[in-house]
């Protein structure tokens, strides 16, 4: 029995590695939204997913490490959030499927008649708001009585805990630090997220899907937003919260957080690949950063330029013609920046790439 248990826990530990779980999640994301949407939208699927999540978490709590991490007071809301995110993603897809079917049949979308019907705010809206508030208040009270807010040792600036983690909602950004330097992961990307979100209504000029759930009428918008939210935000928070231990090393869900776990530092810069492995310049790195990192700079600029051209001339030709230049270039820039994270992840996993452009003397590493 013990060996079977060991086998299961160690396979789950191995499965949760960023390279595997992230890739599997991306594939699942594609399958759910493009292949199995109708199946996913069934009520049965929801029960199965939420049920197996609950069973997985409960059974896993037999493992002391898993239990410690999951039942940390500040992590409880994240566990709750996972169930909520699954539920609301399902609910949205459920409604999308219903509406898409109605649109295909040439009928009105759900509630279209109701949108022309007016009701009094008092009592129709005020009462449901009131009931929501009461329910929320009860949940909050019970939660507060059952679970104490965390309080650790008094602040001590000389004793750094390991791991040191940001508040949980920023752990996606902290997880990004594995792949990008702070100036990108901590400053540029968050700013791009905020600016990009604000710009959405001005970029997405598709007039359809205003005020109802639909997938077929706005595939690009829904897919990119869902990918950003579910994979690049929520999944990264799961990593930062549950699967990163001391020294920000990866730990499987059942793996003891060992302070002395050694991770081999084997990541190599692109310039080191170029000069050391090929023996160019006598195997030495040139002093001039522009020569040393020329290839990396060329690749980064090339990624954005050729990406934009490809989108414009090939993959999103129709959209480009509809949107016009300014909107389209902003859209392309934002989409390519969003794609930069998964690309760097894959490069890290496949060729141990540390930096594409490495100019530490200027704090300019990409």
């Amino acid at each position, binding site marked *: 029995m013990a060996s079977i248990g060991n086998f299961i826990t160690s396979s789950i530990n191995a499965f949760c590695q960023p390279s595997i779980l992230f890739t599997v999640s991306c594939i699942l994301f594609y399958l759910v939204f493009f292949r199995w949407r109708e199946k996913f939208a069934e009520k049965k699927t929801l029960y199965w997913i939420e049920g197996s999540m609950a069973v997985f978490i409960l059974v896993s709590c037999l493992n002391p490490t898993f239990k410690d991490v999951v039942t940390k007071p*500040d992590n409880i*809301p994240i566990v*709750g959030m996972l169930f*909520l995110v699954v539920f*609301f993603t399902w*609910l*949205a897809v459920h409604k*999308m499927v219903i509406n898409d079917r109605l649109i295909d049949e040439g009928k009105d979308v759900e*509630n*279209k008649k*109701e949108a022309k*019907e*007016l*009701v009094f*705010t*008092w009592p129709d809206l*005020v009462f449901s*708001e009131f009931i929501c*508030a009461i329910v*929320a*208040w009860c949940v*909050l*009270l019970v939660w*507060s009585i059952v*679970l*104490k*807010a965390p*309080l650790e*040792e*008094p*602040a001590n*600036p000389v004793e*750094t*805990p390991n791991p*040191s983690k*940001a*508040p*949980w*909602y*920023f752990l996606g950004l902290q997880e990004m630090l594995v792949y990008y330097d*702070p*100036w990108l992961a*901590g*400053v540029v990307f968050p700013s791009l997220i*905020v600016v990009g979100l604000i710009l*959405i*209504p*001005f970029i*997405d000029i598709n*007039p*359809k*899907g*205003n*005020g*109802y*759930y639909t997938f077929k009428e706005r595939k690009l*918008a829904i897919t990119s937003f869902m990918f950003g*939210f579910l994979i690049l935000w929520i999944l990264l928070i799961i990593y930062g919260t549950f699967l990163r231990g001391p020294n920000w090393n990866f730990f499987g869900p059942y793996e003891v957080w060992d302070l002395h776990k050694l991770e081999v530092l084997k990541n190599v810069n692109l310039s080191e690949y170029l000069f050391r492995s090929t023996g160019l310049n006598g195997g030495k790195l040139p002093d001039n950063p522009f020569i040393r990192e020329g290839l990396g700079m060329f690749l980064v600029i090339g990624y954005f330029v050729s990406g934009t051209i490809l989108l414009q001339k090939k993959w999103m030709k129709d959209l480009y013609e509809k949107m016009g230049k300014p909107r389209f270039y902003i859209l392309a820039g934002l989409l390519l920046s969003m794609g930069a994270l998964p690309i760097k992840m894959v490069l890290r996993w496949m060729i141990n790439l540390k930096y594409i452009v490495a100019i530490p003397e*200027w*704090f300019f590493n990409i």
Partner: protein
Amino acid sequence: MASFKEFSESITKSQAWKSIFRHGAPNNARNRVLVVLMNVFLHLHPIRMKKSGVRMSFTWCMGGLTFFLFLVETVTGVLLMFYYRPTAEFAYMDIIALREHVPIGIMREVHRWGAHSMVITVWLHMFRVFLTGSYKPPREFNWGVGVILLVLTLLLSFTGYLLPWDQLAIWAITVGSNMARATPFLGHEGPGASLINSLMGFDVVHAGSDARFALLAGRLVGEATLLRFYDLHCIFIPLAASVLMAIHFWRVRKDGGISGPL
């Protein structure tokens, strides 16, 4: 029962009652209009709305819950301020006292779990608004206001995280604010800082003058940071958020109410 009716009528017909509620019970169309029109809080709502917009399966009530949680945070936060002193000497002890010596001491729990919930509800609210395409014309501006409110919610939670002044607090803020030192041009470990310094001929951007220093009021998370975050948490960000919320709710009304199929 007659006596109960008489009793309740004696109240609702009294001068004091009528001075507060200037119309009858909202059980007919006229009074249902008046109840929203006459009440400063209710009038953030429209008088009538689309039936589709009342449906919980459409709105998920996440925006409403976020606002409710903001109110909970305000009330519990004000109560906590009675006991809490934002100094390195007292902060931690006051939190202990809140837990140990205050009768029914769950205010901090309600405040903390409410804060975490608010972050979650505000995300889900945005998720819903996006998926129903509710940012599309004429609601572009209100979507932008909403994004800023979301950022303010995260900042509220972030600044509040420091106040217990325990290990969890200072190190989370240390890690979270460390990124600011890498701000391009404005952080002393950010790209472009050395360029500015060499252009100026002396160190303009250094650890004692950069973006992180401005955030923390020091080179490290210390007592000055505690006071700064306390001010941001209790006064500055709630005020900014309140103004933006008023705009946000008002614009929901003015942009045609909760979105629905046209």
